[in-house]
């Protein structure tokens, strides 16, 4: 892998390569360039996960023509697909090297261990929502109980905006969560559940289930489960599976052709 990154940098296939490096005993994201090729020997694939594609988006926003190389796991690849679809990154300027993924039901052996949520304690299990829960188990609760359990989780929120700030597919310049008319921006605790539901609605068709938000949440709100639910609705209604392809345009989920007849504006006036 290191040899390939060196080759790419030397040949100019990529100008920068985003991966990880041990710095002061911490595996941290690092931007490798051709100015110091020997550094590439210190490149490591894991076991850590940062939103490298978010860093790439920031570089691309400033330098649109820079060719960016990335170390990708499955979640990074899905995030890249979403960013391509939303025109935040140009797929022609991005090269990827795939590495082993996080442990899950599908992949038992994995290098990245940061996806496994901690086991929920007995109190959280009794009144809140277990982060490891399946959607089916969640739906099995009655409507009122489900509401109470989610409200318990939402009420813990300290409004750090960490879920939004770490999210690799959150790129809007103006965020609804900072809009005074929608959400009281200065107030603490945040208005629940509207704060979380606004974000959940915006995650529909965007969330790639990478789990970084839940990992960054200081109060352990099961955000993945919430966004899984909205994505399930998007899947059921529009058959749109987020992040699976770099060409699946979110604007054409209703079909490629416009079926509604154009309104006769002149007659209406």
């Amino acid at each position, binding site marked *: 892998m290191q040899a390939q990154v060196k080759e790419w940098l030397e040949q100019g296939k990529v100008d920068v390569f985003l991966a990880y490096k041990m710095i002061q005993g911490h595996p941290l994201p690092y*931007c490798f360039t051709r100015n110091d090729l020997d550094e590439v020997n210190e490149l490591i694939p894991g076991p850590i996960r*940062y939103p490298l594609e978010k*860093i790439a988006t920031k*570089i691309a926003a400033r330098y649109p023509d*820079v060719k960016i190389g990335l170390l990708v796991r499955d979640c990074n690849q899905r995030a890249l697909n979403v960013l391509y679809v939303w025109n935040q990154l140009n797929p022609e300027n991005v090269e990827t090297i795939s590495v082993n993924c996080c442990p899950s039901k599908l992949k038992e052996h994995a290098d990245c261990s*940061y996806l496994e949520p901690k086991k929920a304690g007995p109190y959280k299990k009794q009144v809140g929502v277990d982060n490891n829960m399946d959607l089916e188990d969640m739906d099995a609760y009655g409507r009122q109980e489900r509401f109470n359990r989610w409200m318990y989780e939402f009420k813990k929120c300290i409004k750090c905006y960490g879920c939004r*700030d770490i999210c690799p597919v959150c790129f809007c310049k103006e965020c609804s969560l900072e809009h005074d008319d929608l959400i009281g921006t200065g107030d603490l605790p945040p208005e629940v559940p509207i704060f979380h539901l606004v974000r959940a609605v915006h995650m529909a068709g965007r969330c790639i289930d990478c789990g970084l938000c839940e990992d960054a*949440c200081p109060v352990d709100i099961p955000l993945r489960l919430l966004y899984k639910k909205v994505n399930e609705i998007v899947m059921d209604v529009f058959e749109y599976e987020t992040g699976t392809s770099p060409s699946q345009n979110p604007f054409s989920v209703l079909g490629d052709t416009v079926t509604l007849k154009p309104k006769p504006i002149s007659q209406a006036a």
Partner: protein
Amino acid sequence: MDCKIVPSVCSYCGTGCGVLFQVLDGKLMGTMPMKTHPVNEGKLCIKGWNLHEHVNSFMRLKQPLVKTFGRFIKTGWDEAIQLTADRFRGIIEKYGPDSIGVLVSAKITNEENSLGQKFSRAVIGTNNVDHCARL
């Protein structure tokens, strides 16, 4: 293009959360929590998440100001330190060293706190040293 990701410690409070700054061409573009840091384990509060905004803020004080005739005038460090020393000396001569107190902070390092108490005991000559958290 110069892209760096710099590990650091949050400067807001005494907790000392590990943060990562994304630096593009010498300018802070974003802040992330350090996932392997033993203090914050990949989490941050809202102030930590927005460290780059406070560094880049146009309202940030970058040079000393001296209040002259009721208005703040920009000045150099040498002049500001000289002025402060003169005023301290004047107060100590008139009212004695115990008329001055020093407040140190959780936001600065242990070494800087140590220097703070040394300054108050050895230079000013008072034991009036306390911590800003008890203010």
